[in-house]
């Protein structure tokens, strides 16, 4: 079983799976509506160290700030 980690700490270029979202109700709903539902497959394309990330989700690309990326838990798919 691969370890669960926040998206912020996930390695670049690896296929990842969303396991849960550790956020308030509204934000969780928001992320799910944007496609970050459990089991969704994502990939970090670009991680600016301590800054924001670019994440691929299906065919969409998202810029996600560090604070947000800490709330999205993933494991390596």
């Amino acid at each position, binding site marked *: 079983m691969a370890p669960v980690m926040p998206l912020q700490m996930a390695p670049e270029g690896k296929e990842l799976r969303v396991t849960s979202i550790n956020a308030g*109700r*509204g934000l*969780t*709903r*928001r*992320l*799910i*509506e*944007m*496609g970050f*539902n*459990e089991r969704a497959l994502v990939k970090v*394309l*670009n991680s*600016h*160290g*301590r*800054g*924001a990330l*670019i994440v*691929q*989700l*299906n*065919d*969409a*690309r*998202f*810029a*996600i*700030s*560090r*604070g*947000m990326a*800490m*709330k999205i838990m993933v494991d390596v798919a």
Partner: protein
Amino acid sequence: MGAKNHITVALAGNPNAGKTSLFNAITGSRQHVGNWPGVTVEKKVGKYTHKGIEIEVVDLPGTYSLTAYSIDEIVARDYIVEERPDVVVHIVDASNLERNLYLTTQLMELGTRVVIALNMVDIAEKRGDVIDIEKMAGFLEIPVVRTIANIGYGVTTLMDEVVKEAQKPEHHEHEIGYGKEIEKALVKLESIIKRDTHLVGIYPLRWIAVKLIEDDENIKERIEFSPVREEIEEFLAEIDTIDFEARMADKRYEAINAVLPQVLKKGEVGMTTSDMIDRVLTNKYLGIPIFLILMWGAFELTFTFATPFMDIIDLVFGHLSGWANENIEPAWLGSLIGDGIFGGVGFVLIFLPNIFILFLMLSFLEDSGYMARAAFIMDKLMYNLGLHGKSFIPLLMGFGCNIPAIMATRTIEDEKDRLITILVNPFISCGARLPVYLLLAGAFFGGQAATVIFFIYIFGIVVAVGSAKLFRSTILPGKPAPFIMELPPYRLPTLRTTVIHMWERGSMYLRKAGTIIFVFAIVIWSLSAFNGDGYIEETEKDIDEGELLVGDGAFEGKGRFTVLEDGEGTFTGTVLETVELKSGTYEKDRYYEGIELMEEEELHGDGTFEGECEFLSDEDGGRYIGEDFTVEESFAADIGHGFGPITSPLGFTWKMNTALVFGFVAKEVVVGSLGVLYGVGEDEDRVSDSMEDDKDFSPLVAFCLMLFTLLYLPCLATVPVIYKETGSVKWTGFSVGYGLVLAWLLAFVVYQVGSLMGY
């Protein structure tokens, strides 16, 4: 019920799915389509007739769901839920089906008549995706039409379907099963809600029940005064709504995923071109330097490329103004047309090329998709400055015009983040302020002009950022909210769309010149050409023996010249009494050429004096050509003098005060006013000359005037937008007051320190 001959159609869909392109394809409008989230912040309405049926098409802001987070989404959601359009065209990005279909599930639940426009099929198919439209329509029980909105493909078929669908009754049969436990809760809720006959008429029962479990703010407000409110709340308290909601979302995705593999065969998804460009443009090390180079390049082009065009406009208006002044009778009409209209308006129009090029740059950056990346690149910096990552786009747009920039803040979900972005936006130097800098820096800083202007721009950014930090630590405490933003794929904007986009925004400046600036040029001209006694005419007359005259012009003859308090002049002729002046000592009965007289100096002589003074003729009298009641005594001067006590510590004279007062209307009016007040209007060089000749107008004062213009007030058109967006008189007042105080303080410090240092 017969066939409807008037139907309303709403276009809804995720951000960047192509709603605005489709809207344009349907209505034939040239409405601009940007390539970043939040292009449509307000709904847009267009009308068109399809096979004899009048169709009202409403373009809604992009939204991921019917639960709204940001103001632009509230606009979309409220329209669909409250206004109940006859048909909702759901634009689905074919290259991103799964996520897009989530909104479909919500629309289905609402029971609205939906037609899916499967957009950008070309992109999906080029990649090798195969989508079975028939099957998709069958599973969803919703008509699906393939479209490529930007070339107008599929639009007619789509509208045929829309018309067909509009004739059907609303149907609620296609819904998602949420599993036994949740369904039981929904049934129970429905049975309670059913007793509120008022609510039942507005929304489908099941939808209300689902939204109640989802803790939807809007529905909660709706049941506030319902007779069954307590019962609903009691029931909701019994169940784990958070868990229910999560499971419901799961079920929706499950439903989508059950359908998807049967209708979509995915092609190879490798690294896209867009990803490759991103590798470079958003690179950890290269991102910021590339951004800075692009900005600098845009800035540089705005200035250098515009010069020849400016010269041409300048020349044309110079000739027109001169012609009007010389050939139109009576003289006041000639002056009104020449100095007022061609002078004031023409002077503002000189800067049109700058504005257009600036907008061209911004349009290109927006349309290409780079703008959203810039927000990503600057996120860390913005965060450290107390600003939200999404604040960056509105701030960058502010360089064009603060109005669309402030409207663009609607995509920022967090209220505090949004408010701060609105409040600091007016400090970003908009295009209308550019002419003021160009004029003043050009006149007083010569070769250094570009550097000075660049500094003013930077200064505006520093003030915006400093203010954001200040607000964060005082009135609006807290940290910027975390953000997530979809990055659209890059696309190369066509020259045509970029130019159209530029024109649409730049022409606003042109329209302003034709309307508000035109009107105010006349107002300012009138105020400077009239006083309590009527029109201040340039006269040519003989002065008799012993007569006293106060004026601004040329005197020929023998007499005593006393320069006015604020005036100066030159004398050429024979000095009749030895006099010691600041410029030197002049002996009796000797002839001098061009003696300079400064304020309140006096000289007795026989010859020609030019300037502002009291002229007391000797026994012979003399001849005078000029304005015997100068602009100094006009209404405009009264206004300017009125503000004297406030602005004199900043080194401003009445002319500048007057210009600033009118500059509230639109910042470029400052330039137009200075043009009219310095009397020569139409020609940039000549205004510069006459400003340089004004001894109160030093480079330091010019610099302070630029600073003040940058900061002092949002313009007349921006203030109502701030009010509309903040919804608060208090914050609008704060924005105006804060700017004024800040402008005064900074100009005061710069002027006083500068004066002490001897500038």
